[in-house]
């Protein structure tokens, strides 16, 4: 039965939704705005748009720091870890979705439970391992860490997508003479492409934004944009305007990516919630 929604109720919920949306967006908006202020105006909190707009923070940040190298590191780490995670996760999710055993559910739960572990709990052993194997401050080391950190989520998401694919279609492929490799390559992957794309996007965003491991395991060579931002909080104090400029330059690529792929992202995060 349809519910009667009054104009007043509609207005109320609209205001609530906008309030929540603005509250979520406000820190990003303020950061970008602050990046165009001088340091004095950044701490003075002037009226919304009434200040002297300047690009000096951006030019200072560009001159002082190797933005391009940090950007490249972020790209390599985010994309690299996504590709490696997919190579591992696709067969894992296939096995769980199409050849489940009594232990499949338990295994999935166990994998997800590792996400509940505070990273700082394993910081020391990971650090020592990386030091002794020469992986500290290397892109390879960070790709490995990012892959392992996000692998449970990637497997879980792919498992959810694969379960939506009728098993009979894969059986038909087997009857048509497809080997396991052909089955995954020609049938499963094209059918699950929207889900795989959503999973890849989410993993890129998660890896791009990850700060704990990138700050702990890198120094100069492999530092991504998260370390780039942190370098602007110095012992002399916080240079808000420059910090905002550095932050804007760090988050802009992933914001743009998220904007253009928001439909896929939303679909990816909610797929399977409703039949």
């Amino acid at each position, binding site marked *: 039965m349809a519910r009667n929604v009054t104009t007043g109720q509609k207005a109320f919920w609209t205001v609530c939704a906008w309030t929540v949306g603005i509250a979520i967006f406000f820190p990003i908006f303020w950061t970008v705005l602050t990046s165009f202020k001088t340091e004095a105006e950044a701490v003075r909190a002037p009226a919304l748009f009434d200040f002297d707009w300047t690009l000096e923070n951006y030019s200072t940040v560009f001159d002082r720091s190797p933005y391009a190298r940090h950007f490249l590191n972020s790209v390599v780490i985010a994309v690299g870890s996504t590709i490696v995670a997919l190579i591992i996760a696709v067969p894992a999710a296939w096995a769980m979705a199409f050849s489940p055993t009594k232990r499949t559910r338990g295994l999935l739960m166990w994998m997800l439970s590792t996400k509940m572990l505070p990273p700082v709990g394993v910081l020391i052993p990971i650090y020592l391992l990386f030091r002794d194997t020469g992986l500290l401050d290397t892109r390879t080391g960070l790709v490995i860490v990012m892959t392992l950190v996000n692998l449970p989520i990637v497997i879980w998401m792919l498992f959810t997508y694969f379960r939506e694919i*009728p098993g*009979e279609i894969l*059986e*038909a492929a*087997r*009857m048509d*003479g*497809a080997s396991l490799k052909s089955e995954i390559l020609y*049938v499963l992957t094209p*059918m699950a492409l929207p889900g795989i794309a959503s999973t890849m996007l989410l993993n890129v965003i998660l890896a791009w934004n990850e700060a704990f491991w990138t700050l702990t395991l890198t120094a100069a060579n492999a530092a991504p944009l998260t370390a780039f931002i942190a370098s602007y909080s110095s012992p002399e104090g916080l240079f808000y305007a420059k910090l905002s400029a550095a932050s804007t330059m760090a988050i802009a690529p992933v914001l743009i990516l998220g904007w253009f792929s928001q439909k896929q992202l939303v679909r990816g995060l909610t797929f399977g919630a409703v039949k």
Partner: protein
Amino acid sequence: MGSITLKGVTKRFDDVEVIPPLDLSIEDGEFVVFVGPSGCGKSTLLRLIAGLEDVSGGHIELDGRDVTELPPSKRGLAMVFQSYALYPHMTVRKNIGFPLKMAGLEQSAIDAKVEAAAKVLNLGDYIERRPGQLSGGQRQRVAIGRAIVREPSSFLFDEPLSNLDAALRGTMRLEISELHNTLKTTMVYVTHDQVEAMTMADKIVVLNKGNIEQVGSPLELYKNPVSLFVAGFIGSPAMNMVTGEPAARHGAHTIGVRPEHLRLSTEGGEWSGTVGVAEHLGSDTFLHVEVDGIGTMTARADGEFPARHGDRIGLTPDTARLHRFDAAGAAMTA
């Protein structure tokens, strides 16, 4: 060559034995139908032959070759699924050509075979469409086309017409029968619809709880059912079953009489009853009669029979066509 032999084949899911040791021979070129109620194991048996399920015991041979351990792709069989199982991201052309691509054929050879199959199945106008743009009947033809191009030793059909409406089901039934007459390839067909079984099969295998109740031609099963189960399952409307004193009078625990073997009379008969529902079809009349001391029975008369709801009627079974069953449900031969 397309003979299929099952020797002592069993299937267990965990501790549940769904198919006890089963033996069955299917000759080359036969159209064999597995029929039975839901859960009787007919689809499981088909999937064991296909290799989509592993046997728990026994052997499966195709043309004398033991294929028990072989994967589905190596058995040389083709299967048509209930849900068609077409690849939604591929066009009709690519769907039909997929098995040929997996077999490593040259693209020109694939194109030629696909065109030929599409022509036979009247799919020429739809060859560049995707499954989502086709009707149910067209999708079913694509599924059949995909099976045909492989030139398999046997075709396996798993309730392929269940998702179609009644009219289309009738048409497709004829098409599949014609296909069998043309290709003369072994076909194993699973259905719960005994009308499909009776009209399409050279041989029917009636299954009940994983066991083979009877194997025989449609008419053999119709005229000489070996058990109560087969007698009640084959034939539409179902055979009338009578127990108690009326059955004992004929020397059996249970007697079965088909609706068309009951002689109807307004003058009385061995049994009397009141007409409940009268179905006048023109070519036949079906009367559902509440028979005194027995229960509801269905009788069939040729053409028009002037009976209406509430009329008293006499029924007399044709004793030559009576089926007698003992207390265990087995047919009594003498």
